[in-house]
């Protein structure tokens, strides 16, 4: 069984929700990222999304844009990130998924990307600029290797689209909480509750909510509803503030533990 499926199966038995954290690989450098991933697992994170930085991240807000720029300046690329993952995989058990833009995947080659990611210990892939309509080849390749293709559902997705997204998604479905780009928000839209409920009526697959979630209060509220909560920019802001400081891991861990308590 894929690690992601095993995770959600286990959580379901315990009636618990998944806590997912996104960080950009190579921000501020790959050795820090490696340490952060092990720290995240210890701090109660159930799954880590590893962002492969892209020069033009058009689904991301300023926080992840800056993280991507920092990582690219340090020369992070698919190869060096795969190397880091191979190393961290020996230390952590939690599922890892890549999140990146389609040009990087296509440029590396779909088959090569899925094969090398799988071998390194990555369990799935999220590509924000790849709707299921354009993902036929990737779905085919990933399916053969038990590599999860996680698609995004949005507040503007019609019922037909939601059905298609649900049927094409493996591992979980990523529900985008708002119309907009990534980034911590103080307030989230009212229609999340209704939208997540209607998505859950369509599918039995796990639905995880991300985009905008920045504090334990929001996370707790949404965890009642969804199967998992995804936090990215809010964690990256802590990393950003503590770059070069000795207690970066501690600061991130403290923030993440607060969210973990709210979700679990």
């Amino acid at each position, binding site marked *: 069984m894929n690690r992601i499926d095993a995770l959600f199966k286990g959580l379901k038995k315990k009636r618990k929700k998944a806590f997912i954290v996104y960080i950009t690989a190579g921000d501020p450098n790959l050795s820090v990222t490696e340490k952060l991933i092990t720290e995240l697992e210890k701090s109660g994170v159930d799954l880590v999304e590893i962002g492969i930085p*892209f*020069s*033009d*991240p*058009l*689904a991301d*807000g300023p926080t992840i*844009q800056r993280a991507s720029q920092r990582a*690219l300046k340090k020369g992070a*690329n*698919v190869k060096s990130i795969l190397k880091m993952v191979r190393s961290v995989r020996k230390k952590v058990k939690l599922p890892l998924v890549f999140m990146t*833009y*389609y*040009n*990087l995947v*296509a*440029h*590396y080659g779909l088959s090569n990307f899925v094969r090398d990611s799988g071998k390194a210990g990555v369990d799935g892939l999220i590509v*924000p*600029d*790849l*709707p299921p*309509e*354009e993902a036929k080849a990737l779905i085919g390749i990933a399916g053969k290797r038990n590599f999860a293709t996680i*698609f*995004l*559902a*949005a*507040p*503007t*997705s*019609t019922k037909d*689209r939601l059905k298609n*997204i649900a049927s094409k998604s493996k591992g979980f479905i990523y529900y*985008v909480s708002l*119309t*907009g*780009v990534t980034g911590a928000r103080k307030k989230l839209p009212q229609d999340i509750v209704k939208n997540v409920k209607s998505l859950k009526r369509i599918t039995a697959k796990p639905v995880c909510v991300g985009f905008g979630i920045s504090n334990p209060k929001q996370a707790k509220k949404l965890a009642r509803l969804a199967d998992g909560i995804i936090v990215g920019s809010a964690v990256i802001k802590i990393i950003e503030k503590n770059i070069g400081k000795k207690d970066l891991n501690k600061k991130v861990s403290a923030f993440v533990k607060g969210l973990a308590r709210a979700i679990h």
Partner: protein
Amino acid sequence: MRKKHKTPDKRGYFGEFGGKFVPETLMHALKELEGELNKALRDRSFLKEFDYYLKDYAGRPTPLYFAKRLTKKLGGAAIYLKREDLAHTGAHKINNTLGQALLAKKMGKQRIIAETGAGQHGVATATVAAVFGFECDVYMGTEDIRRQALNVYRMKLLGAKVVPVTSGSCTLKDATNEAIRDWVTNVRNTHYILGSVVGPHPYPFMVRKFQSVIGKEAKSQILKIKKRLPDYLVACVGGGSNSIGLFHPFFNDKKVKFVGVEAAGRGVATKEHAATLVKGAPGILHGSRSYLLQDKDGQINIAHSISAGLDYPGVGPEHSYYKKIKRAKYVAVTDSDALRGFRLLSECEGIIPALESAHAIHYASKLAPKLKKNNTIVICISGRGDKDIDIVKEHIKF
């Protein structure tokens, strides 16, 4: 019977290029736009209104002018200029913004946004926002704001807000990223008027539809004057809207050769150019699969051109298709040669062209002497050069 040329296909592909590579949030809006567009293109009252605005507001048809002195000076093929510089707002961009604004009105959107490089598309968008009463935000890189100050001021006069973009190279690519981010956020009440034949389906198709007026007019004009089709069509290519507008109506006229002129910047052997089709490789950016300037990892390169309108590391998918099937030839002209073209047309014909169009002029000036006197070249003068005076001043001293 000749097989009718039909692109893009239902999924928005021109051969292997095109498609819809956007965040899920936009997928429904694209489908809605496609539906409204197809309805509008069959709706006589819509087409009548579009024609009305093209004629009475934008001043179409634009002339096809015989460049007599230039032709004589070069001593070869007869050169005709398709005078898009004479369209309202000073460039071909108005053709597309009028069409899209009418569509946005039909869709009940209150707000329009746009990206702009040279500022010509921004001005054309601000113009239709004023005439149809939309709220309007135009995204523009700070580097372009600096070098196209006149157009920034024009947009403000027209009542639009110019939003400075400080990410990446601070040019058209980054302005496009930011416009897409705005659209993802405000998709429910906002229409994004993309200015070129780029982006996700149906944009490349839609912008071609609205810009095809250039080629349709040129065709009937040259047939009237010369009683035959031209031998060459020459136009500059950034994203590629004036060139597709000119080329597409001649697609099935196989004897008419197409030349797309890209910006070679400081030379295609350097890293500082915008010659996407000449030097790039296929990839995915801004919603479609097409040629791109990218590095060994697939990161997008920063383009360079003296002309802000060509300073873009991508190109429309239909151009990639034309390259693949060898329907068009793509070449590149450097900054300094573009300045030569700029000066040549100004001095020879009393027409100060946009720096973008100057690339096409320079190429045509090298092509014409190699052809016979009974050959004909049509150059698209995509815009007027007033906006570029500050840049040109730095290079041409008197």
